[in-house]
Each structure stands twice: as C-alpha cells, then as structure tokens.
C-alpha cells in the first residue's frame, strides 16, 4: 500500500486474531482456546488462533503466514502489555507487507490473567470482552506512516562532574560536537573534592584531572563553565538552547592563572565552597589548584568593588591585564540534537538530624568535610586533625545512614556511604595507626566489585564495626569530648562511648539547582525526586522525553564506577540519533481538521508539551500540531469545542466502537 492511501471502503475487512498463552502466564488462568474460538465467530474476523508464545519466531511466522494465506488486512494480538511487544509485532506486520498501524494489541496478561488469577472463568469472560473490543477497533484502523526529522549532530551536556565529563569525552571522541555547561567556576564536581576512591584507594584527583584537562583541549567540546542553561525549546534532533554565561570579571583568554589577584585581594575570609567552609578563600579565586578552566573568578557578592565601590587592587596588580570589571553576562544560543542531564547530587543536610549535634560541635562533621580534611589539597594540607583544636583525633566514630533509609528524610539507600566510611576508617588507620575507629551501621552494604574484600581488609586493620544506628551525640559539661549513645543491637546493650571526632555519613539527595532544567524539559522525577529513567531496567539512561538522557547521580545515588559506566551508556544512547542523522517519530499524533478549527486557542492552553499552536495570521488563524512534540496525550482532542482535533490511531469512531463492543452484555458473547 502506498503512503497516503486509505483502505478502500469497498475493500473487505479481513481480521486475523492471535491469542497468546504466554507459556502458563495467560493460559493457566484464561481458556485461550475458548477465546480464540469466540473471536473466530465475530464478523470481519477471517482467522483466529492461539499460540504458546506469539512473540517467538514460530509465533511470528504464524502471523506472517496467516496474513498471506488468508489475505488478512488487520491484525489483533491478545497477549502482554503493548509496552513489551508492540514494536515486535509492528515489525512482523511490516515483514508480511502490512502497514504496521494495522495492528491492535490487547493486554490479557497484566490486565487480566495476572490480576484475576483466582477467577479463571471470569478472567476468560473478560478476555473475550477485551478481544471483541480490540476487533471492533481494528476494523476501523487506517494505515499510518512514521514521521521523520533531521537531527543536528551535537549534544548539550548539563553538568560537568565525572558523569558529564565522561559523557562529553565519549561523544566528542565519536566525532560529535558537545556543549558542556557547568554552573560552577570549575568542572570536576564532587569527585574533585574526594581524597581517595574506594576500594582501590586511587587518588581521586589523580584519576580525575587527566579527564578534566582533556575537556577544554578537545576540538569537539565547547566548555561553558560558570554558565547555566537558561531555556530549551524544540524537540529531539532540533533543540534550541540558550545558555547564560556569567561574568567572571576576568578574561578567560588573558588570565594566566598566576594568582597574583587572589594574593593581593584584601577580602580573604570567604568560606571556601570547595572545602565546604573548612577553609577560606579570597573574593578573587580559583576553587582548587587543578581547576579547569584555571581562570580566576571575581565573586561579585564579596568583592569590595561591587559591594562598596572601592579597591580594584586585582585590576592594578594583574600582569596579564585580564581583570575586566565591565564584563557582562552573555547569552549564547546553540542548536543540539540531544541532551544529557548530568547534574549530580547534593549532600543531605545533616542539620535535619539534630540528635547528632552538627553545627553545635565543631568535631561533628559530614563525610564530605572529612574528605577535605584528608586531602593534601584541603584546608589542613591533608593533616587529619580535629576542627575544634587542631589536634590529632584518637577516637573517631562514623555514623551511617544519616538521612538515608529513613522515611522521615529519604527512604532510599544512598549506596556510597558504607564504602565511603569503610574507606575513611582505613585512611584514619593509615594516618594514625593507634587511633580507635568505630563504624556504627544498620547494614553494611559492600556490593560492588572488590568491596566485600576491602571491607574484610579494613576489619582486619582493627576497625570496630558496631551494628546499631547511633542515637545521639552530646557533650558532658566542661568536656572536650563527644559522648555517643547507641545500642549495640547484636548484644542488645545500650552504651555510651566518648569520641573526639564524629563523622556523619550523609546521604545523597537530588540537586536543588537541577530544578530549572527539570521544569524546562518537563522531565519526570521518581518518588525519591531524582530524575526518572524511561524504564528501570531496559531504558536506564533514557527519559520519557525523546532525545534527553540521564547519567550519574542525577538519576539516583551511585558510586564512581557506576557513574562512569552510566555516563558512557548515556553518551552512546545520545549518539544514536546523531549518527543516524534523522529521527523517526510515532505517527499516532493529533491532527487538526482545518475546516472545523475556529482558532479559539483552547488547545494551546491545555497542551503541556507546547505541541499545538494557533498560527498568527491576519484572520482565522488555525491550530497546527508540531508533529515532533506531540505525545498523543489527547488533551487537545478532549478540549476542542469544535471537535476539530483527532488523534491518529485513536479516533473517536475507533474508541466508540471499542466501547460498544466492551459494553455488550456478557451473554451475547456466548
């Protein structure tokens, strides 16, 4: 059949019906033979049969052969959810020379046999009704043809932690243009803040910085640091992105990173974000020595010129003449075919657990702060000391699951904290072999490659693992030490022990700053508020929005190996449309009958995807559907007062026919 051609009205409708056993999944509950027999007697049905696995090759062969043998022009398959096998069967139809839209699927597994497992008789009746309804619709099906769009061969990557860096490098190495946007002055993300990585104890900076350095050097990567995505329009293959590049007040090209500006800057007491407030920085700064780009940034909030209108010392001392107070925020527009979200995570705010006394006691710190205390580039130069007095700690406690596995805060497991604390415990032992280290845990989850082995090693090093969630940290009057109260649940004993430092293994939470991009792209969130993948198992890096992919902790807490693997997966997925050069979209979308449309714009107001628009003409503007953006949700169809809009593949006639068949009294089906 040629494109645009309708089934001839006079052409006889010949429907083939295939009822799947799905092994025992369906057949154990539903009498499939009876359903097939019933279907065979319905008008317009030429052939009906049942099959053990319709999705199997013999099953598909049956369909293909039957189409040819019986000259079928419509197919109904009653099996599992169309989400499972609709694409499979569409291809089967195509292979037999039928338009793939002439298929109607009935879900008699999830929506029938599984839910009515204990009522086989009624389940069979229901299956008959569902099949009859599908047959009624099938009779009215029209051939539809997929839509094709050209693709801009470039990708926007949002966030330049290890996830964004890995995804960008992969795409760039494949030969695609990448725009990598990072809101902070430097790329690197949380991984740059870590001292060592578990379980191999690689120096985090040592393994990360080579990748960081590769980013700006790569001819295919356009790094936009200190920038934010302002808006995204368009659709897969054709996104239009506006990026705001914030003013650094220091020229990126001229700056030689000599650091004289920061040295001479009189404002030196700003808590360093990179060191989580444990160290200070000047108002002119690079966040850390290996920053990429190494350009200095003037922090407008604290710079004396911006706050008080005085100073400008940096401008006078800069040997490269790079300071430029007249610099302004820039807007950059780029066209991309795909987008990768790699916005990472925030650390759980441990202040929400007042029982642990964070902020009350200087020696109670978060696990990320502990990383900075261990790091040679950190505020203490890698010397592990108590923040309260600068003395080496002798007794350190690690409290697990702070903000994780807790329905009051975050019900999920943050996945990295067990291993991070085991690593920290090891590092304490390495620096101070005599120090006593205790880890208070609920369950120790050492699930990754080499993790359990690492845990065993740290146990052998003498770290005391106590099964019990620490209950409270307090201080006796006039004491320098912290008293920790806990139940050793294996003994069933409540104990109090003194420590001179307590580290809270804080959980991972969704980045609050990722909210604008989520709204812009209308991305769904899972119940934990991380970005939701299209399918938890089979489409783990795609989203419900075509052309938008996820990786790293933006999708959920994970450790570095998982982040890197997922980033490569997202890059791979995001490159598919780029490599193909075109995208094919489902033909089941809305279309407007121009004769009926009165241009009232009601459809515009109900479409959450901005996929329908009344054209601005002098008079009688008509609604027009953006075929790439339409998701076939049906809102406009229901809202249109002139009934001018129809969904292809779900027309009112088709739906009515389905209802009529469904509502027919059961006795008429015998």
């Amino acid at each position, binding site marked *: 059949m040629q494109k645009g051609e309708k089934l001839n009205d006079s052409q006889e409708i010949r429907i083939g019906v295939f009822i799947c056993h799905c092994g025992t999944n369906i057949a154990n509950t539903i009498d499939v033979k009876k359903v097939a027999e019933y279907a065979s007697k319905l008008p317009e049905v030429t052939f009906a049969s049942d099959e053990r696995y319709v999705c199997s090759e013999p099953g598909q062969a049956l369909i293909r052969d039957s189409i040819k043998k019986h000259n079928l022009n419509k197919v109904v398959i009653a099996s599992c959810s169309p989400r499972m096998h609709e694409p499979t069967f569409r291809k089967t139809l195509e292979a037999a020379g039928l338009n793939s839209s002439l298929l109607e699927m009935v879900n008699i597994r999830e929506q029938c046999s599984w839910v009515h497992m204990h009522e086989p008789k009624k389940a069979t009746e229901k299956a008959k009704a569902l099949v009859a309804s599908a047959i009624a619709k099938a009779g009215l099906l029209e051939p539809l043809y997929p839509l094709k769009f050209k693709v801009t061969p470039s990708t926007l990557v949002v966030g330049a932690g290890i996830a964004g860096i890995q995804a960008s490098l992969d795409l760039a190495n494949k030969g695609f243009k990448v725009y990598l946007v990072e809101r902070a002055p430097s790329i690197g993300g949380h991984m740059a803040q870590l001292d060592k990585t578990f379980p191999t104890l690689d120096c985090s900076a040592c393994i990360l910085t080579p990748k960081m350095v590769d980013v700006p050097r790569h001819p295919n990567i356009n790094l936009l640091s200190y920038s934010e995505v302002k808006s995204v329009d368009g659709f897969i293959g054709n996104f239009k992105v506006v990026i705001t590049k914030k003013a650094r007040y220091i020229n990126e090209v001229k700056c030689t990173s000599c650091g004289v500006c920061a040295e001479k800057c009189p404002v030196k007491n700003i808590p360093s974000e990179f060191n989580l407030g444990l160290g200070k920085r000047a108002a002119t700064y690079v966040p850390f020595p290996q920053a990429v780009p190494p350009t200095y940034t003037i922090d407008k909030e604290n710079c004396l010129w911006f706050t008080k209108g005085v100073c400008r010392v940096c401008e006078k001392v800069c040997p490269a003449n790079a300071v430029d107070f007249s610099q302004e925020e820039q807007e950059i527009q780029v066209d991309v075919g795909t987008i990768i979200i790699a916005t990472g995570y925030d650390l759980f705010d441990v202040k929400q657990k007042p029982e642990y006394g964070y902020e009350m006691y200087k020696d109670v710190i978060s696990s990320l702060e502990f990383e900075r205390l261990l790091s040679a580039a950190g505020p203490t130069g890698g010397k592990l000391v108590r923040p309260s007095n600068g003395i080496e700690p002798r007794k350190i406690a690690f409290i697990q*699951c702070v903000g994780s596995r*807790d329905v*009051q805060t975050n019900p999920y497991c943050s996945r990295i904290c067990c291993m991070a604390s085991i690593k920290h415990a090891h590092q304490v032992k390495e620096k101070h072999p005599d120090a006593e280290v205790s880890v208070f845990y609920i369950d120790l989850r050492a699930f990754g490659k080499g993790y359990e082995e690492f845990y065993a090693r740290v146990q052998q090093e003498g770290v005391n693992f106590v099964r019990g*969630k620490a209950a409270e940290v*307090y201080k006796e009057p006039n004491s320098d030490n912290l008293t920790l109260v806990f*139940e050793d*649940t294996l003994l069933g004993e409540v104990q109090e022990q003194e420590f001179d430092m307590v580290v809270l293994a804080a959980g991972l939470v969704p980045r609050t700053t990722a909210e604008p991009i989520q709204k812009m792209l209308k991305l769904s969130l899972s119940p934990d508020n991380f970005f939701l993948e299209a399918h938890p198992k089979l489409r783990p890096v795609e989203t419900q929005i075509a052309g938008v992919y996820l990786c790293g902790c933006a999708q959920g807490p994970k450790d570095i190996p998982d982040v890197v693997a997922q980033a490569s997966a997202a890059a791979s997925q995001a490159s598919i449309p780029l490599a193909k050069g075109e995208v094919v979209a489902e033909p089941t979308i809305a279309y407007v009958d121009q004769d009926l449309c009165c241009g009232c714009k009601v459809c515009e107001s109900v479409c959450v995807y901005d996929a329908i628009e009344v054209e601005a003409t002098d008079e009688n503007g008509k609604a027009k559907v953006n075929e790439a953006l339409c998701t076939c949700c049906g809102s406009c169809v229901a809202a249109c007062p002139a009934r001018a809009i129809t969904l292809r593949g779900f027309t009112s006639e088709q739906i009515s026919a389905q209802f009529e068949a469904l509502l027919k009294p059961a006795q008429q089906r015998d």
Partner: protein
Amino acid sequence: MNAQELIQKHKLLECIHCGICTGSCPVSRNAGLNIRKYMREVVAHGDVTVHSQNELWSCTTCATCGIRCPKEIIPYEFLIDIRSLAVEKGQVAATIRDALESTFKNGNPWERIRSKRSEWTQGLEIKHISQGAEMLYFVGCTPAYDPRAQKIARSLAECLGKANVDFGILGVEENCCGSEIYGMGEKGLFEFLVEENMKIFRKHHIERIVTGCPHAFHTFKNRYDQTDFEVQHHTQLLSKVIEEGKLTFSKELKKQVIYHDPCFLGKQNGVYDEPRKAIESIPGVKLLEFDRTRERSLCCEGGGGRMWIDITGPRLAENRVRNATKYGAEILVTACPFCLSTFEDAVKTTGLEGKIQIMDLAELLSLAL
C-alpha cells in the same frame, strides 16, 4: 490485643532493628528497657513476652524513640499497648492501680477528693468559667492538688490577671485530662475521660483553653480528636502577651537561668522558642542552655505514669540539676508540673539545696512583675 494485632498496628514487620529507639531511650540504661527487643520478641515468638515491672513501667512516654525512628514506627505506643495487656490482667503495681481507681472515682490520680480541686485559688479572685470568660484555664490535677505545683497555678493566674487575659476555671467540675491514664495503658478509662471532659467543655461552650501542663496540652491537642476548641500551653500565651506589651515587668531579676524543655512540650509539639523568648524578656535575666536541649532535651522521668510508680536506679533529674549548676545556673526553669516535681526531688537527693532553685516559667515571670 494479640501478637498479630500488635504486629499489624505498629508495623513491626517494617522494623530494621537499627536500635535508634533503644539508644535514644532515656531509661534504657538505668532500667534495662530495650524496646527494640520487645518488638522483635512479638514478631519472632508470635506472642507477647512477660517483662519485669521495673522495665515495663520505666518508659516515660517521652516519645524520643518514635520521633527518631527511621521507619516511623512509634515504639512507645507499642509499649503502651503492652501496658494495656498488663492492666487488663490486673498485673500492675498497687500504686498504679490506686491512681487509676482514683481517677475514675475522683477525677484525679492523686487520690484526692474532688471538692478540694480549687483549694489552690484561696485568696485569689478567679472566676468560674460559667461567669463568662474568653478562655478556660485548665489547671490539671498536679497543679490543683500538689502543694508545690499549686504555686504554678497561682503564679500563672497572677500573670494572666496582670496581662488582662479574660479567663475562668472549671473549679470542681474539672477532671483529669487523661494523659497519664493513656500512658499507663488504661485506654478505656481514657476514653471515658475524653467523653466526660468534652461534655463539660461543650456545656460551657469552651473555644479556647490555656493550660500550664504540657501533658494536658499534648493530650487535648493530639489525642482528643476534636475541633471544638483550641489549646495553648501557658508558655505560648505568656510569650504572646509579653510580645504584645500586655504583660510588663517592674523588677529586674539579676539571675542566670537555664531552661529545660519538657518532652511533651518540646519534642512532641515543637514548642521551643516561646518559653525562651519569655525568659529573655525579663530584665536582668541571662538565659543559659543545656548541652542536651530542645530536640535533644533529656527527659526528667516524670511522664508515662512514672509519678505513680517507683523504678529503681539513678535519676535523670539528678543529672539534669547537677548539670544545671555546672553550667552556672541559679534557677532551673521548666514549664511542666512533673518536671518541676522531679527536679525538686533531685535537688534534695543531690544535696544541691540552696545552690539552685527550680521554677516554672510562670513562677519566674511573677517574680519580676
């Protein structure tokens, strides 16, 4: 209630045995109460284990276990149900039995006769609610009868009078609020008290209640399942009238004052700032803080029926008054008649008499009027 019902009601199968409940329990070390094990035993044995009186009745229903539970299980409510089983079987200490009987008969657990309920008002002009007033002052059993706690009632009446708050009392019509009865597990009697009290409140068209007892406050607010009236704790009302300039001070009080958060006011209802604001508004007063303060306040062991049963072991109230002096406090202020009573006892047993005074917020304020 059998094991299965307990498991269902308290979501015991969801417990991950992290131990934060038992670790947080203020009496677990002294009395040996391990609430987590209690819950586990019901699940593992399918039966309710018999526990020693000392353990079972040591719980003060301070609620810390429930507040910190990561699975939102409420262990102290489970324990109250275990107490209910003991109460049903009559397996309770004579003192508890007497308190329950007295509440049924006299409307108070102190075994005092009803006619003496407004004895504390002697010499004060306080109107009965039936004479018409904007607000009911619900006195509560302890401030009504206990000679030491009566001073709370008298001071509060003085403060409210000075601030021109139009209030009245129920006099001998007033009943036990039921808070401690609930905590002792006598839920039938509690329901009876709720009905009786609601009848009386309705009769007098009560729309606003102020009480000096956090236990009554919590119970009216959270356990009465009613929308007839609003209840305030006196710390909230006092802080408000001070802020509005209705209650002013004429004297300076050059004192170092430390405030103890009662569990039923702080942890269970989040009232932390109002009492502190009120204290700090007194000229000359310096407010000190315990290390274990606000959400981490250490229970005084006065709640959950503990006023009517003697549990062996050292007293947390002693720790509290000792620490108060270590922080340099001259007055330990609280806002609960039970805290007041346990601290007064602790001052004696620790030999700190003359070194520290125990006061209710209302008493402290009235010193500066």
